[in-house]
């Protein structure tokens, strides 16, 4: 049963992609296919979660791809992977709610989104080197296409930079995996790489290449510039959410590769990695504080949290993985909801030719929703993210006081920056001349967001409340 579900989970987005390709242009068919694909996979993930949770183990499914060469492809799922997948699907579903009528009719964008969805599902389910690499590399194309369509045309050089960085990351991962393949004469499970004994130089080469590959995806300094410049120009909520999921692939890479027990050669590099992460967190927090756009602050917020999760993976042990995944689940949903609501407000403001500041004065329903999500993002205890973060931060303090203090400072600064910007968006002194002209969020969309709030609220009591 689980095998079929796993297989369907992987195949349905690809099938959706093919169906979408055959759909008519300038109609809502593609959008409907996308929604159907997402919903069907969400239902399957819920079934899988229930099945896995009962057994409390990792389910693996392997098959031979090529008979002559040792290429046993393995897919697998555990509670963490299922939760992460669920959060990704929910985040994309939320972003689809925010699309305008014209954006919903854009067939090419939605096909790319579905193709990305297939790749990221594969990446999270992949348990061996080759399939992991294939899906890791496969994400570049749809994201590049999406950015080219939805991003600002003047930012073309940035787009090339984005492509080069990501291509380099793919090459780095290829080097790492090629070395592993050569030394072990075949495809390996990801979990076995960290357990295997390696010659020191080979090990350093493998770990360094893999880390560089994942770091390039997470915007750690000096790789941070391209993603912020591109993200700030995107006006399409789905494209923005997908581009912000690239750091998540790096995060998942760390989660899959990072050894449980640090060998000596890896342990030596940890302080260096921690310093780089903290440096980037503080720098991006300051950028978030300094910039005036809400969207840039949102980008800073998502980057800082991604780095915080990477820090948790590097510094903490296996015991805190569940807390991290619970927190990540809420973070994905909140980030997507804030982005979508903000882009919806900006779109309305742009249509009415009004300044973005104080636009929320004319949109009381949207304001209430945005306030709720910003409160969660700022670290207020409205969802389970609050206490999971508390457990993680306490554990980081246990490892190092200085790391914990810098980490909390960066998180607090970006939380305050978001809150401050929200207040500015509610500033009555810059109120619009006629508020009645602005259209507030529609009832359907409001109900959808209330359902999201409901999910978050119930997760406060039990993060896995939807598992039966």
């Amino acid at each position: 049963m689980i095998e079929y579900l796993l297989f369907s989970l992987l195949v349905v987005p690809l099938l959706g992609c093919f169906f979408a390709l055959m759909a008519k242009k300038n109609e809502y068919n593609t959008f409907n296919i996308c929604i159907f694909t997402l919903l069907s996979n969400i239902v399957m993930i819920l079934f899988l979660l229930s099945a896995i949770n009962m057994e409390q183990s990792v389910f693996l499914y392997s098959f031979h791809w090529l008979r002559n060469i040792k290429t046993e492809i393995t897919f697998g799922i555990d509670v963490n992977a299922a939760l992460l997948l669920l959060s990704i699907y929910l985040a994309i579903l939320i972003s689809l709610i925010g699309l305008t009528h014209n954006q919903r009719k854009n067939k090419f964008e939605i096909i790319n989104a579905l193709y990305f969805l297939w790749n990221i599902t594969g990446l999270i389910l992949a348990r061996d080197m080759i399939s992991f690499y294939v899906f890791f590399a496969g994400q570049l194309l749809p994201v590049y296409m999406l950015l080219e369509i939805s991003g600002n045309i003047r930012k073309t050089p940035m787009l090339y930079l984005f492509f080069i960085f990501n291509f380099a990351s793919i090459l780095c991962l290829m080097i790492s995996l090629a070395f592993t393949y050569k030394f072990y004469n075949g495809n390996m499970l990801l979990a076995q790489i960290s357990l295997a004994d390696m010659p020191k130089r080979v090990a350093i080469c493998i770990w360094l290449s893999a880390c560089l590959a994942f770091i390039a995806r997470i915007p750690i300094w000096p790789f941070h510039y391209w993603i912020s410049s591109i993200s700030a120009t995107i006006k399409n909520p789905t494209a923005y959410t997908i581009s912000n999921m690239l750091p998540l692939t790096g995060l998942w890479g760390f989660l899959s590769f990072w050894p449980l027990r640090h060998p000596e050669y890896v342990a030596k590099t940890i302080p260096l990695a921690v310093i780089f992460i903290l440096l980037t967190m503080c720098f991006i927090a300051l950028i978030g504080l300094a910039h005036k756009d809400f969207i840039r602050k949102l980008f800073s917020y998502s980057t800082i949290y991604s780095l915080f999760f990477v820090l948790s993976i590097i510094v903490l042990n296996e015991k805190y993985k569940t807390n991290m995944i619970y927190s990540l689940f809420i973070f994905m949903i909140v980030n997507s909801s804030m982005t979508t609501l903000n882009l919806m407000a900006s779109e309305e403001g742009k249509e009415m030719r009004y300044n973005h500041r104080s636009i929320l004065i004319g949109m009381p329903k949207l304001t209430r929703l945005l306030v709720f999500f910003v409160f969660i993002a700022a670290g207020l205890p409205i969802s389970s993210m609050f206490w999971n973060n508390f457990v993680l931060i306490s554990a980081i303090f246990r490892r190092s006081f200085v790391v914990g203090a810098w980490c909390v400072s960066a998180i607090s600064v970006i939380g305050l920056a978001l809150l401050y910007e929200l207040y500015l968006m509610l500033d009555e002194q810059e109120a619009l001349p006629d508020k009645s002209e602005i259209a507030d969020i529609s009832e359907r969309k409001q109900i959808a967001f209330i359902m999201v709030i409901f999910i978050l609220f119930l997760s406060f009591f039990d993060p896995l409340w939807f598992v039966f």
Partner: protein
Amino acid sequence: MIAYVAVLLFLIGTFCCFKAGVKFGGIFSWLALISAFFVFILFFSGMQANTEDVFSFVWNSSPGGDMKIDIISNRYNYELVYPFFVITLLSLAGSKFLRLEKIGNIHSAVLIFNLVAIILMLTSNNFIQLLMTLFIIDILAFFIIKNAFVSRQYILMNIVADMMLFMVIAVINSRIKSLDIRQILHYNHIGFHTDFVAICGLTAIFIKFGFFVFHIGLCALKDIKLHNLINILFLFAPLSAMLVLLKFHVVWQNSPYFMPYLNLVCITTMCWSFWRCLSVDTYKAKIIYLQTMFWALLVELIRFSGFVWNAYFTSLIIVSYILTMSLYLFYYYSGRRNNMLQILNTSRYCKKGIISSCFLVLISVVLLSDVLYKIYNNSNRYYIWIFAVFYIISLSAIISQVCKYHDILRPSNFPIKFKWVVFIGFLYILSVPLRQVELTAVPVYAPSFVFLFCCLLPFGFCKKLYQVEWLQNLNGFNTLYTTLIYSAQLLGRFFLLLIDRVFIEKIVIRNSIVMTQSSLRTFRRLSGNAKSVLFILTLLLVLLWLSFKQGSGK
């Protein structure tokens, strides 16, 4: 029992949240008041019976630690909850009986939810429960203030304080490896960054109290409605700060900086608030400074009692609330004017209202003196007594400023029955020092005397009431009044101009805003330039290295 009370209150609050029109909203808030009163009777009966029980359940669990909800009913917790329950009831009743402002059912719901949060905070044995309630109280304050622009500074400052407490609790939790607050004493044996924990924690609670130099957030609230302001001053951030102090003093006391820092800030706040209360020219700002003075006084009193709550503090806080509500009446009868000059001009047209407010204030101050006297007997610290006198002088100065025109307090303005009531009231005031005549405790009578001295300073009233010849011929009181109150006000205004307007507002705040804005602007420009980014990152790297070096040394 406290657990049942909390659940019942939560249900009442939820019931009040339903959207109702103007008419039904009023009925809902009446029902909320009545049902809250019945719950209070239940609570009171439990308090009398002195029942002890523990209500605990695991809310959320993970390998990192379980999150529990604990509600512990014992004598100490009953005594702690009691004053805030009474104040909430008084606030709910005040809004209905006195018809102060148009208050809907949502307002009642927020107050009741706040009480539930206070109960959960007081009875918590879990760090996360404590932190959650701390944050929830701030969120509820956001709903009470309503005005987003006005609440900006207050909420942001409180969030900063909450994040500081978050960090402090995370550090403590990291060492004791448990979410249980009862394990907190182990932290003293481990002693990990105790000075940081104490200073950071104390700074956070000072921000929440609105003590001097952290008073900007609280003072920003001077533009909200006065009854909301009073609720904020008594039931929200300052109260949560006091509860945090009561819970964490055990850890903070371990640092040598704790006592000097606490003393310094409390004494500075009392002096600063005293001057500001005399000199500031808006009524709401006066109330804010009066209240910060009160909290500083209370913190000092609690410190002398060894950070243990007792019945005197309960009385003190309730009396203080009644007093502040009585002061609200001045504002109400003068047509909700904020400027002192306007209040003064309009008060003459509502003499009876002002007189009755004066009477309420008098009674409250007498009660206050009584409680302070009892606390004084326990603590036996003279300088606290001086600050208590400061507090009462500030109060009497406010009354004197409102009732400056003598004709307001002319006996002909009194109804005959009211004259008798006032007369009996004054007899009661006079009896306070006479009840416990001990020559050694002379300073104890000071507040009553000072109060009499200051409040009866509109001597036209005394002269008309007591037809004594020597009193009729005496003009020295006016001189004393001018010397003590008027010159104090003048001096206060001078300091206000010099320190607050010129130094703090124009130099410190203005320059810090300009510096922050310009540094942010510069940073924004620099972050686009590769060389500048390298420079900033090098700076950050040096800072990180220094902090790592400092951290590894401990």
